[in-house]
């Protein structure tokens, strides 16, 4: 007998995303790159007493003037990556499967990835995006920032669709450091809608990871034989005889997914499909394994 994965059950029950993300991350072997190390850098971390052998250039002379003691000023070495998450909050993210919405699932994916990134010392940024509003959190490090990021995802209304232009993004682009952009969406708005987004990222030299989240029923159309379905974005509604439309539907869907793959894949962009009947832990494990190989 299949037991429903505990993680999805917890997610449905409305558990704090941060806790669940931490629980999942603990299951991973983390440390995909060097992470935080004490040393010189622009971000202040702490003072420590001078020890014989320390480089005199590291002595904080202003501190010496105030306290008449030698202190070495330590800073965190900056991570080489800022992970910028883009979470789709269009109406299609309201799609539910087994009582779990696509938005909730995507939130957990971002929470886990942000936790991993944060633990590695990367700064994380978040953009909640649809055509009507844009909420964002600038890229920073630290636990408090991570908590703010996760908290921002809690109170969101999914509506509208993904914006057609990228004006909302241009003010937030940081061209001074390398960034990894992670887009979490169902990517059902059409392959061409992402062209300008990809061009923008390429122009500033960033890498994009698209994570497409689709339901098992969406991928196989395994609904009851006669069902009333509704488009979450247009609110159009109709009755379908599943068995009579399934073949054509799957043909259309997979043609689109192929088109999407052709449009999105490039040396600096990647696409990974997650199915909502899989646990986030398993999906991300596969995802990280794939990235490790790249």
């Amino acid at each position: 007998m299949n037991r429903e994965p505990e993680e999805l059950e917890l997610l449905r029950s409305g558990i704090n995303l941060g806790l669940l993300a931490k629980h999942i991350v603990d299951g991973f072997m983390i440390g995909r790159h060097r992470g935080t190390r004490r040393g010189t850098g622009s971000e202040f971390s702490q003072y420590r007493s001078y020890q014989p052998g320390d480089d005199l250039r590291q002595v904080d002379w202003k501190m010496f003037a105030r306290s008449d003691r030698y202190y070495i000023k330590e800073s965190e070495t900056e991570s080489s990556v800022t992970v910028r998450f883009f979470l789709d909050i269009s109406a299609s993210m309201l799609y539910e499967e087994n009582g779990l919405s696509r938005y909730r699932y995507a939130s957990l994916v971002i929470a886990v990835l942000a936790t991993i990134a944060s633990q590695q010392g990367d700064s994380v940024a978040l953009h909640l995006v649809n055509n009507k509003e844009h909420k964002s959190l600038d890229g920073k490090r630290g636990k408090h920032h991570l908590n703010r990021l996760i908290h921002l995802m809690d109170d969101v209304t999914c509506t509208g669709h993904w914006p057609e232009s990228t004006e909302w993004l241009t003010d937030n682009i940081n061209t001074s450091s390398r960034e990894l952009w992670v887009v979490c969406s169902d990517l059902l708005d059409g392959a061409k809608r992402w062209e300008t987004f990809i061009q923008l990222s390429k122009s500033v030299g960033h890498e994009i990871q698209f994570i497409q989240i689709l339901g098992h029923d969406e991928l196989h159309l395994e609904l009851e034989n006669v069902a009333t379905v509704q488009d979450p974005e247009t609110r159009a509604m109709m009755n379908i005889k599943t068995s009579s439309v399934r073949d054509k539907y799957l043909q259309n869907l997979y043609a689109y997914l192929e088109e999407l793959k052709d449009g999105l894949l490039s040396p600096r962009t990647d696409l990974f499909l997650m199915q909502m009947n899989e646990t986030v832990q398993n999906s991300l494990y596969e995802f990280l394994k794939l990235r490790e190989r790249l």
Partner: protein
Amino acid sequence: MIFGSAMWLWLGLGVLIPIFIHLWNKKEKKPRLLGTFRFLPEESRAAASRIELHEIPLLLIRMGIVVLVMLLMAELFWQKESEPVQRISIQEVKDGEQIWKKDESGIVELKISAEKINLHGWWNILQQVEHEYLPEYVTVDGGFTQDRFKGNRPYSSASVTWNRVDSLQHQQKILATWIDADKNAKALSQLKTENGVVTNVTDIEGEEALSAENITLILNSENAESINTGLRYAAEMLSISVEERVIPNIAQVEKGESIVNLVELISENGKRDWAEPNKWTGVSFNISGLDTKQVFAESFIETESGEPFFGLNSTDDFIINGQVEAELVSWVYAGIGNALLLHSLKVGEALYPVMEENQLMVNKSSSAIRSAVQPHSARNWLFGLLLLFWVVERMIAPRRGM
């Protein structure tokens, strides 16, 4: 179209089930969000909430299946289209298939095997003949044993003549013999012909003539002339000698040493009533002076209210209870005389089936007629159609996803 088990017709309501299912499928249910909505084929959108053309045959086929099952359960029999006929002759044959034929004069002849008659009984056969042909006259030639008259007598508007034919081997049967007024031996014989059994009076010779007895109808010379005319007519029909003298009763029949009296009783304060046409008189007539307290051992003619008018009392005398209206006296007494003489010749029992009272009760509620005369069961047709419908349904339904 007739049904062996009409009670199953209520299953016909089942035709509503496919309609209900089709409408239910069209009913909008609680909508389910589908992010991939736009990948649904265009044609399925157009067909969302109306019954499509291709669904109508499927709906009809499914309704047809329900109807066919109902007809199978209700045991449908085809009924042959036939116009009412005037006369039907039903004859019992020893064996073989049932034969139905209609001659140029419009007489329908049915030959039914003894086995089938034993199975269905005469009442069922008579009922179906009545139902299918609406005849005015029915002649039944065959064996009339008790077991062939199970159940109640069906309602029949036809005049039925029952000819007992005990032996089907012989073409002719002698029912009674006697010596007529001219000292010739006469016989009442039953002759089997193509048109049924004909009863007539013939001259006989040889051994059968030796057993003939003298029979005489004695009329009371003080009777009204119209009474004697009727009785004399009855005697002439059978070539029986008639004498006229003063006797205590209206008439009497002398055969050998036995005497059967015909007694007329008229009650001064008697009831007035009327009799329906019957096999003896064939007309309706008014009766006065009817004594309702008379007790009859056997009644041949009864009034409309069920009072016995003509019959036998306990001493085997024929009683006429009341007075017949003047215009029809001769006619009625001819019929009474006929009954009196046939009874005296002891042929009455041979001509009609002997039945118990409950067997003679008219069954007015019976509607379930087993096809005894024309067994055109629709079962094979129905099974064939059901199979065909089922195959077509299975071919269409999966393709339509229904």
